[in-house]
């Protein structure tokens, strides 16, 4: 409908208008710039966090499950005291012996003790008591020496496994198998060195030195009612649902829970956590989207304001354009295009700043955001939102310009 020359000049005019009023255009577009920049940065951080977490879940294994005590909802506190619902060793043994869909299961109990080797001493290090099945469950095996065996647990041997960081911290020889160290004042022989995997969930262990002892030995070092985690592996991720039911059945029977009685524990497969985390990330992304909506609204009002100023400043120009044959539609399109261009330039600058912020996030040490990146959809969406803002808020000034009477406009001072 408009000839190509019209579009060419309208776009070049829009850019020259921005260029001629650089500082004004920048201040006007600031709302859009800040909105787009902050949102893309938040989305970048979320994307990085999500990638990181899913990576960790992935490394943990998709067929993994956890069992932990859980007080039923809405139940009075005194009906289910903590010590009554704690997982017992016998219960874990029942899971190991009776559940056919469970490939491996291990209790893990942690106790903080001082460790000594020669004149080296580390205070309050976390010692984990484990079963031999732990190697399979955690997918961690030994680099040197041997893994734990069932005899270590049954005979309550004073043996331990350590990792490479512990070797360094205790100043032990590079192959410390056969060396004895003092744990909580008792003598333990090092029988193997376990592989160091990447850090567990978000720095849950502050020191990266790890020491493991047989579960039966750790049990003796604990109080009467102590807390243990239970981690296990199902035969395959596909049997996770049936596996959970099986574990639940065994535990309910062990605890003597009749039909209809609430459950005093939880069995959770890893995929459930992944689902929950994904839902959480989607929720935060939606909130970020809401923030961009608000900031674009504020930015859009700025755009509308400046376009009204522009229309009134250029009234004579509008009059002239109409006199030489510009239809109301041509004037409307020109001003609309100018508002959209301003918004798109703002969006572009915003994405550039957002990208810079995302790059900055990856450089924060220990923030676990080294995978922060702005996904393509966020860039596309930012541009679409910016353009829509330009159309919506540029419409009123553009209509005003298109309706100007050419005679009045040419007389305008």
């Amino acid at each position, binding site marked *: 409908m408009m000839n190509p020359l019209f579009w060419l000049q309208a776009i070049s005019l829009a850019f020259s208008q921005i260029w001629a009023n650089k500082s004004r255009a920048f201040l006007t577009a600031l709302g859009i710039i800040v909105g787009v920049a902050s949102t893309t940065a938040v989305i970048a951080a979320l994307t990085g966090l999500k990638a990181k977490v899913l990576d960790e879940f992935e490394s943990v294994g998709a067929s993994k499950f956890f069992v932990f005590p859980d007080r039923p909802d809405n139940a009075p506190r005194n009906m289910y005291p903590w010590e009554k619902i704690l997982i017992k060793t016998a219960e874990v043994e029942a899971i190991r012996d009776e559940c056919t869909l469970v490939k491996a299961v291990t209790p893990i109990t942690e106790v903080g003790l001082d460790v000594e080797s020669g004149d080296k001493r580390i205070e309050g290090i976390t010692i984990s008591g484990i079963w031999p099945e732990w190697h399979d469950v955690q997918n961690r095996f030994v680099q040197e020496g041997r893994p734990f065996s069932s005899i270590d647990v049954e005979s309550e041997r004073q043996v331990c496994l350590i990792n490479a960081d512990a070797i360094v911290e205790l100043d032990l020889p590079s192959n410390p198998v056969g060396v004895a160290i003092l744990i909580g004042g008792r003598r333990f022989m090092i029988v193997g060195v376990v592989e160091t995997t990447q850090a567990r969930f978000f720095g849950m262990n502050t020191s990266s030195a790890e020491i493991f002892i047989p579960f039966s030995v750790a049990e003796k070092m604990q109080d009467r009612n102590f807390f243990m985690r239970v981690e296990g592996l199902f035969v395959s991720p596909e049997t996770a649902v049936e596996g959970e039911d099986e574990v639940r059945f065994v535990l309910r029977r062990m605890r003597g829970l009749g039909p209809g009685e609430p459950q005093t524990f939880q069995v959770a497969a890893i995929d459930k956590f992944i689902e929950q985390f994904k839902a959480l990330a989607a929720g935060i992304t939606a909130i970020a989207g809401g923030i961009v909506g608000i900031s674009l609204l504020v930015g859009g009002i700025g755009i509308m304001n400046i376009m009204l100023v522009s229309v009134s400043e250029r009234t004579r120009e509008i009059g002239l*354009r109409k006199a030489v044959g510009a239809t109301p539609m041509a004037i409307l399109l020109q001003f609309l295009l100018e508002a959209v261009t301003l918004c798109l330039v703002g969006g572009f600058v915003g994405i550039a700043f957002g990208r810079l912020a995302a790059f900055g996030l990856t450089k924060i040490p220990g923030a676990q955001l080294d995978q922060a990146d702005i996904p393509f959809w966020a860039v596309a969406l930012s541009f679409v939102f910016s353009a829509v803002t330009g159309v919506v808020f540029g419409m009123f000034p553009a209509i005003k310009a298109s309706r100007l009477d050419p005679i009045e406009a040419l007389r305008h001072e």
Partner: protein
Amino acid sequence: MLRQGRRMGDERPGPAVNPAARVVEPLPLIDVRALEKIYRVGVETIHALRGLDLTIGRNEMVAIMGSSGSGKSTLMNMLGCLDRPTSGVYLLNGRDVSRMGAKELAQVRNEEIGFVFQSFELLPRQTALENVELPLIYAQGGWRGRRQRALAALDRVGLADRVHHRPNQLSGGQRQRVAIARAILNRPSILLADEPTGNLDSATTIEILALFRQIHTEGQTVIIVTHEDEVAAHCQRVVRLRDGRVLSDVPVAEDIAGRHLDMIAARGTAS
């Protein structure tokens, strides 16, 4: 007078219009009948035009004069298709433009009318060439070869060496030449000038009026709205308005403006 007369006789193509005889052509370029325009300003109604009749033929050069409030600006807006009359008929090239909508009027202005304003109305950040090209942006087609057309128009007004200058790098006379080049670009039916020399000194005024005459000689219909007799003296025919009606409509020699003719002739020979 002599000079002008000779030129008209020798060079003007097409059927000759004898201004003295006031012969109405079968299809005049402009045919205005019983034109009325009533403005409402608050509760007041202003009768700007009260049944005005006017006919202008092809390739005439007409001055429209009148004191302020005589309706000459209103008439110019009507002739330029910037506004619609309250009643009456305006036939431009045989087409009734008095009942057209805003979109159609814009197209008529683009194709049929070339405006020249008192304050030039050039876009300050655009070069002379870009300013001249402006009407082509809104043309329905035929935008190819625009550069050549714009350059040719600038050449016609004697600014071939200033095409890439911006308005603030040009003198007043040069700016008005750019505006004239813009007005004649689409080869309009009417070149409509509103006080074209109102912002110019006397020497430049003479140059610009000479340019109008030259363009007229080349076949262009020219209408100049002015209140200066000296400007009107450059035209062939003078239409005077009062109270929204035609007061007098005579060849320039019979008008008061005619007394400047000798002076113009003298300047013409001197230059």
